[in-house]
C-alpha cells in the first residue's frame, strides 16, 4: 500500500497544476484566487489506479459552471452553453487535472474515464488533499482523495 496522498503531494503543488490548466484551457488571463471555503455544486472526477489508489475531484459552484463552459468553448457572453457542453467541459477539466496529478504520483498507474455527478467526497483525513479557490467570484475545489475506507462527507471544507 502506498503512502497517503498528503505524503505524496501538497496543496501548493495542486494549486500550481490547477493554475496551469486554467491558463491553458479557460484563458491566459484567468486566475484562480486562493479561498478557503466549502464548495457545494456539480462535480467531475477521474480515478487513479496504481501504487496510490484514489480519485481526483473537481467541484464547482453551480453558479459558475455555465460561465466556465462559455470560457473554455470561447462562446460569446450572451451565448448559453448546453447542458451537454457544461458536462463535457467539467469532465475534461477533471481529466486533465487528474492526468497532471497522476504524473506527480508513484507509478505506473492508470487513469479512468472522467465522470460527472454528485461529488464522491470523503471526510478530511491524511489520505485527502483539498484546495479551494475562486474563479470570477465562483467557488471551486479540487480534492485528491484515497480509495481507502473513510467516512463520507458532503462538503469540500478546507481544514484551517
Amino acid at each position, binding site marked *: 500500500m502506498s503512502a497517503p496522498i498528503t505524503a505524496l503531494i501538497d496543496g501548493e503543488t495542486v494549486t500550481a497544476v490547477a493554475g*496551469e*490548466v486554467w*491558463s*491553458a*484551457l479557460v484563458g491566459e488571463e484567468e486566475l484562480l484566487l486562493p479561498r478557503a471555503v466549502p464548495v457545494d455544486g456539480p462535480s467531475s472526477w477521474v480515478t487513479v489506479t496504481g501504487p496510490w489508489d484514489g480519485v481526483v475531484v473537481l467541484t464547482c459552484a453551480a453558479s459558475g459552471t455555465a460561465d466556465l463552459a462559455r470560457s*473554455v*468553448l*470561447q462562446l460569446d457572453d450572451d451565448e448559453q452553453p448546453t447542458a*451537454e*457542453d457544461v458536462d*463535457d*467541459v467539467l*469532465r*475534461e477539466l477533471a*481529466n*486533465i487535472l*487528474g*492526468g*497532471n496529478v*497522476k*504524473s506527480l504520483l508513484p*507509478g*505506473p498507474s492508470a*487513469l*479512468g*474515464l472522467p465522470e460527472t455527478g454528485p461529488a464522491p467526497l470523503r471526510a478530511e483525513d491524511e489520505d485527502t488533499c483539498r484546495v479551494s479557490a475562486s474563479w470570477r467570484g465562483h467557488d471551486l475545489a479540487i480534492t485528491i482523495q484515497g480509495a481507502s475506507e473513510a467516512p463520507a462527507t458532503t462538503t469540500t471544507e478546507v481544514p484551517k
Partner: protein
Amino acid sequence: MKILVADDSRVMRQIVIRTLRQAGYDDVDVVEAEDGADCLAKVGSESPDLVLSDWNMPNMTGIECLRALRAQGSSVPFGFVTSEGSPEMRETASDAGALFLIAKPFTPDTFRDALDAVLA
C-alpha cells in the same frame, strides 16, 4: 492535407481543432472520430495525413487503435494528445509507433513544435 482528430470529448476535439488553427494550420481539413474504434475505421475511409488521438477513450483506447493500425500494415503518422505525459506512457507510445505525445494542457507553440516536422 487532412488531420483526423480522435477524442471521446467533443469539447476537447473542438479545443484541439481550435489550437491547430491558432498554431497556423489554417488550411488543413479536419475529420473527427469519437473513440479508437471510430478512428480505426476513419483512417481506412478518410486516408488522413496525420492522426491526433487521445489515449483514454471508451470502446477502443488510442494505444489499442495505433497497435491495430500497425498490425494492419498502416503507416499513417500518429501522435497522441492526452492528459498524461509520464515517461512510461511516452515510451509505450513510441514503442507502438507514435511520433510524439502532446500532454494536456497544451499551447499553439506545443502543437507547432510537434507537428511542423510531420507536416513539412
